């Protein structure tokens, strides 16, 4: 259960080895936290990540096998996690692959896999978690979207479109859950330096997993529906969204 000061007793992260996901765990953990669940495909990496977390005494970590593309396993996976932690207090969907547009152009199958990993898998999993939370009548779902989904750029239009789809799904879900006691927060980070973007040239307003986690935790606490990280990107993209296409498609990157 969430307690009176908004501390969560359990935190579940899908894409449990994601740097942003783990940074969010670090931000959300308090002396009240009893369970942290990292659901990921690479469970040995998950175990390593779990061991590296700084947790209060009495807080258990659990690494659960979860493959974003194996959509038929997701409902069972959520049930397994409920069996471990009881009520789901907070579920963070941090899974995602960036890929490169060149790779997708050369190998269209990879583009399909990216859609499965970034959109189909998260949607099945979040839907299953939402079903559980609707019964509980409490809970908070955090969806890692991206500014790349606000207006999809030519340079990463497969990735951008998966995030656009996930973002749209999450907005609809939030409305669907209105009045049930279950809340949704959609996080739209900008360029995040880290493993996922290694070797790439940083975009303007680049940020870090830790900074995204701080913004996310604040948004959860205040029950904000959508948060941009850093916050200024909300205004930047408000403008970019309305640029004429002739200008938009000429933006480099």
């Amino acid at each position, binding site marked *: *259960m*969430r*307690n*009176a*000061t*908004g*501390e969560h*007793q359990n935190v579940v992260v899908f894409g449990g080895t994601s740097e942003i996901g783990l940074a969010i765990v670090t931000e959300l953990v*308090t*002396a*009240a936290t*009893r369970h942290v669940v990292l659901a990921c495909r690479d469970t040995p990496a998950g175990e390593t990540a779990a061991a590296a977390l700084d947790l209060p005494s*009495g807080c258990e970590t659990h690494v659960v096998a979860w493959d974003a593309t194996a959509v038929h396993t997701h409902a069972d996976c959520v049930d397994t996690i409920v069996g471990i932690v*009881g*009520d789901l207090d907070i579920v963070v969907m941090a899974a995602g692959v960036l890929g490169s547009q060149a790779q997708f152009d050369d190998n269209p199958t990879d583009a399909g896999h990216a859609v499965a990993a970034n959109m189909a898998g998260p949607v099945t999993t979040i839907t299953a978690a939402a079903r559980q939370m609707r*019964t*509980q*009548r*409490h809970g908070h779902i955090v969806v890692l979207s991206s500014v790349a989904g606000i207006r999809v750029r030519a340079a990463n239009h497969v990735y951008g479109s998966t995030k656009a789809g996930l973002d749209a799904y999450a907005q609809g879900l939030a409305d669907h859950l209105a*009045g*049930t*006691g279950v809340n949704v927060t959609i996080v739209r980070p900008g360029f995040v330096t880290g493993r996922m973007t290694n070797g790439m040239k940083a975009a303007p307003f680049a940020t870090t997993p830790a900074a995204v986690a701080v913004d996310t935790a604040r948004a959860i*606490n205040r029950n904000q529906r959508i948060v941009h990280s850093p916050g200024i990107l909300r205004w930047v993209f408000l403008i970019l969204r309305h640029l004429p296409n002739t200008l938009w498609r000429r933006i480099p990157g």
Partner: protein
Amino acid sequence: MTDSRVVSGWGRTSPVSCRVHEVVAGDVGSVVVAAGGSGAGRGVLARGLGRSYGDAAQASGGDLIRLVDGGIDLDVSTGVVTVDAGTSLDELLRVSVPAGWFVPVTPGTRFVTVGGAIAADVHGKNHHRDGSFGGWVESFDMVLASGELVSVSPVSDPGLFWATVGGMGLTGVIVSARVRMIPVETSRMLVSTRRFGDLDSLMASMTERDDAFRYSVAWVDATVSGRRLGRGVVTWGEHATRDALSGRAGREPLSYAPSQRVGVPGVVGSVGVVRRWNAAAFSEAWFRKAPVSRDGEVQSIPAFFHPLDGVADWNRVYGRRGFVQYQFVVPDTAVDTVRQVLERVVVSKPADFLNVLKRFGAAGDGMLSFPMPGWTLTVDLPVVDGLGALLHELDDMVLSAGGRVYLAKDAHTTPAMITAGYLRLAEWRSVRDRVDPTRVFQSDLARRLAL
């Protein structure tokens, strides 16, 4: 009548949605069986007037039972009352006081039900002398998880009786109770007041004078530090005898008709009236207005026992995010902990005004009852960023002093804190598992604290 409603505790911190069934006692069994057999596992729980502060009287996604019967059958010769569990102490007092009987124990509000008073094993200003509410209960009728109605007394089933007294509603639904009342000659109180400039003199005086009075409590200031830390006002009281009253009070010694409550002026939704910047001013004024020393003051029952009941919805003054009423008890030997907690609270400068200090007497027999011999301090802490960490710090201080926190107030603590503080938890669990093996009865408190 059944409908889905958003409910929260008095602290308004964790609103959740539950199905609320307003039923007569005879229908409780069928609601319990239907909800328990639904397989959803979200729990059933009795809810009275929602005066517990945290999440004790809610079960997110579950079923709440509100008993509508309000029967009161008072034997005016013996003072034993048979009362429906959904009856409030307010309703009970309106019948009993004019007949010369007072409730044996009342918390700081009379808007609690008899069932809730047993479930939380509430205490009052007379704890040092009279113990907690459960000690005055001769028997109660309750509906078990099976739907069966049973009559329970300390003799017929001591395990179930003392697991239910203080058991936070998790053993079943109490539908009626037989309670011993105490005789009073009048509806007035004779009050003695002393003001103290520091915590040591205040506590010393309570230790020394409490035995001479049936009722005793102190208000302490949590906005001053240093030498003035814990300055405050102690009030002691007795039920006035008939010959102590004169004038109109003497002609109508048992008159008792508290007026209806008025709301906080202009309150719509919630307002933050008490803020950091004015909490100190409120406290200063409260301290200054108290007499340095006064004896023999005549007060009414509401003025002495239930001052906040005169202000409807006072829980809204702390603002939208609600507040936590943190109450702990530590043994007599841990007086320093009271000081440390107070110091810590003063440093954090909360918008805190109401702080109550009381010396408990002997513990009762309830397995999860809160009171134990020692000092209990209550502080109101509005929810602000950082409050969670502060409360964990306070928990650590209380725990290392061998103390515990009050379940009826709790909204924040951890299972470990309860396991360490409530030494009879295992015994309580064994009784609960006997009467409710499938956990039909649940609350958010029970889920949060893994009771």
